[in-house]
């Protein structure tokens, strides 16, 4: 139940810890040597680990705190775990990034910004208030603008950050305008109040539609759904690889969490009896699933089609991540707990495979100094283990069986078929087939093409270990996914909503 403000502080311990470590990590720049990356990185890691302990402690909590501002529920818990894992992995990746080393002398700021982005993502996942949604989204955005332009000697990164900040500020402006309209309609910024107002009825749908579409523009920009995706390829290509990987997972997942919570809490008819168990009823007349379905189809189709033409692997992965947003959106169209748990499962898969792929891309960029797909020729001979790892991740991204990506896609499609969205499932399958082409093209380059140079390049122990740590769950979870499934199924609960 709702908590008093004093009690509420007990529920944001992980966020508080992260904030404290944000400051501490910043302060390491005073204490340590300016060029040392280890002190801030370890400080940030420590912060993540301690926050992780507190997050784990919150398992099963289902509370609404700070007078309905923020929900600490299984749903947000799920995402918090994802953010923490992603954050830790990104810090580990960053320690090896040559890109950062070449330009940045500001490691303390870099790692503290990773923490601040994670704080924003935490709040995004739990925000039940329009103001909180806006503020947390802005926190994530501002952190990511700075991160994407972090290597500022690189013209690409500068361009990326400029485009990002203009596009982001504009989108959040649209969203804010939409929020103001919703506020005008209900007199509250609280999502639950909005739901109650809808339940009473008597509000013009057209106004709600325009408000929701404007808010959708803000959310769509975060999850890079077509037609709000345009910034994605440019920013992903321009930003440092570690940042790109971070944005593609944490920022996107946070956007999805917010999207799901906004629509689910706002538009579910709590009083209605569901026709099918596990499905939700939305207020009559608000068929926003059609909008989501349309966005989903557009997003995955355009993402995949444009990816076919890419020659830069970062840009290709950017389009691929757009396509994956489309896949994940499919699960939301079903309006069911099944679909939602499928989406959550997909996030786990997406985290593992996408971060893995970006990691390999970073390693290759470190040692081979290229991001060009053509230059991946013969990687299978030159660095066998790295090539193997990339193949696993690409298989997972395509959704081919011995990987967890397959299970993720399988459950998404199953959810669609379960709720009779067969046409959407077919579109999804066709898209997967298209994606097969460009993913396997990389694998073909690595194994079937002769390299122009044949010297072998090997990687050190830590690198191989980290890579193994990413490969193993990708395969292991295909064989034994029940815990993830159970976790996802338990995590569809949002506070106050069945």
């Amino acid at each position: 139940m709702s908590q008093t403000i004093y009690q509420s502080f007990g529920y944001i311990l992980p966020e508080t810890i992260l904030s404290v470590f944000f400051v501490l990590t910043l302060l390491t720049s005073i204490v340590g040597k300016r060029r040392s990356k280890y002190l801030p990185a370890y400080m940030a890691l420590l912060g993540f680990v301690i926050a992780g302990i507190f997050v784990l402690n919150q398992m099963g909590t289902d509370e609404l705190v700070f007078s309905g501002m923020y929900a600490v529920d299984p749903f947000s818990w799920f995402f918090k775990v994802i953010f923490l894992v992603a954050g830790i992995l990104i810090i580990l990746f960053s320690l090896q990034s040559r890109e950062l080393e070449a330009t940045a002398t500001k490691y303390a700021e870099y790692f503290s910004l990773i923490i601040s982005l994670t704080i924003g993502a935490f709040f995004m996942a739990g925000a039940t208030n329009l103001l909180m949604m806006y503020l947390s989204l802005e926190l994530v955005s501002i952190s990511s603008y700075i991160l994407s332009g972090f290597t500022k000697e690189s013209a690409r990164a500068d361009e990326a950050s400029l485009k990002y900040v203009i596009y982001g500020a504009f989108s959040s402006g649209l969203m804010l305008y939409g929020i103001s309209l919703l506020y005008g309609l209900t007199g509250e910024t609280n999502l639950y109040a909005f739901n109650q107002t809808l339940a009473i009825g008597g509000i013009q749908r057209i106004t709600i539609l325009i408000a929701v579409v404007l808010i959708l523009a803000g959310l769509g920009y975060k999850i890079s759904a077509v037609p709000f995706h345009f910034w994605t390829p440019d920013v992903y290509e321009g930003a440092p690889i570690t940042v790109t990987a971070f944005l593609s997972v944490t920022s996107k997942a946070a956007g999805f969490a917010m999207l799901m919570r906004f629509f689910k809490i706002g538009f579910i008819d709590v009083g209605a009896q569901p026709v099918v168990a596990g499905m939700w009823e939305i207020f009559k007349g608000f068929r926003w699933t059609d909008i989501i379905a349309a966005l989903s189809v557009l997003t995955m189709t355009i993402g995949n089609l444009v990816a076919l033409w890419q020659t830069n692997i970062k840009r290709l992965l950017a389009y691929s991540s757009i396509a994956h947003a489309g896949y994940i959106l499919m699960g939301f169209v079903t309006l069911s707990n099944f679909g939602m748990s499928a989406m959550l499962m997909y996030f786990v898969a997406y985290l593992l495979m996408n971060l893995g792929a970006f990691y390999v891309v970073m390693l290759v960029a470190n040692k081979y100094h290229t991001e060009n797909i053509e230059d991946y020729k013969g990687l299978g001979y030159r660095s066998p283990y790295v090539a193997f790892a990339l193949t696993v991740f690409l298989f997972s991204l395509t959704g081919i069986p011995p990987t967890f990506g397959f299970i993720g896609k399988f459950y998404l499609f199953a959810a669609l078929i379960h709720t009779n969205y067969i046409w959407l499932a077919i579109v999804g399958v066709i898209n997967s087939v298209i994606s097969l082409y460009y993913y396997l093209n990389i694998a073909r380059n690595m194994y079937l093409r002769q390299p122009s140079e044949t010297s072998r390049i090997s990687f050190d122990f830590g690198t191989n270990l980290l890579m193994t740590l990413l490969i193993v769950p990708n395969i292991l979870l295909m064989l034994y996914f029940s815990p993830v499934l159970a976790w996802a199924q338990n995590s569809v609960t949002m506070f106050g909503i069945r």
Partner: protein
Amino acid sequence: MNWYDIIFYAFAVITVVSAVGVVFSRNILYAAFSLLFTFFGIAALYVLLTADFIAVTQILLYVGGILVLIIFGVMLTSRAFNVEVKRGFLKRIPAVFVTAALAGTLIGVLTTTRWPSVNFLPYEETARPIGVLLMTQFVLPFELASILLLVALVGAVIIARREKEKRA
């Protein structure tokens, strides 16, 4: 027609006209000064809406803070004050079209919507209740905003700072 209406229309016109100036002015400094008038106009509108605290904040932060920031930005980035390169005429057509469509739709929807209540309330003091709200109901956004400002501060500094040890 009473004084309130007249004042409203006067400030509304000032606001809109100066906003047009911001958007269409060729000279960046003129645009910045037009923006000043827009902010003032909006602040006046806030006063009309009996939101005195917001009005003051608007003037303090926007005029005193953001606008100064913008002007600094203009000065730091422009050799002459007129950097606005010629605008491509063709690109303005779709822009005008899209914006007009948007404005039309918005105004159409907003004017036809029955908003929950349109009673005009008598003036009440706002500074104290807002302060109380900030410390009670809105304490979490308040904290979040503080982190956000810190991040923005740090970010702005590291991005804008000239590197002393810049490499060749």
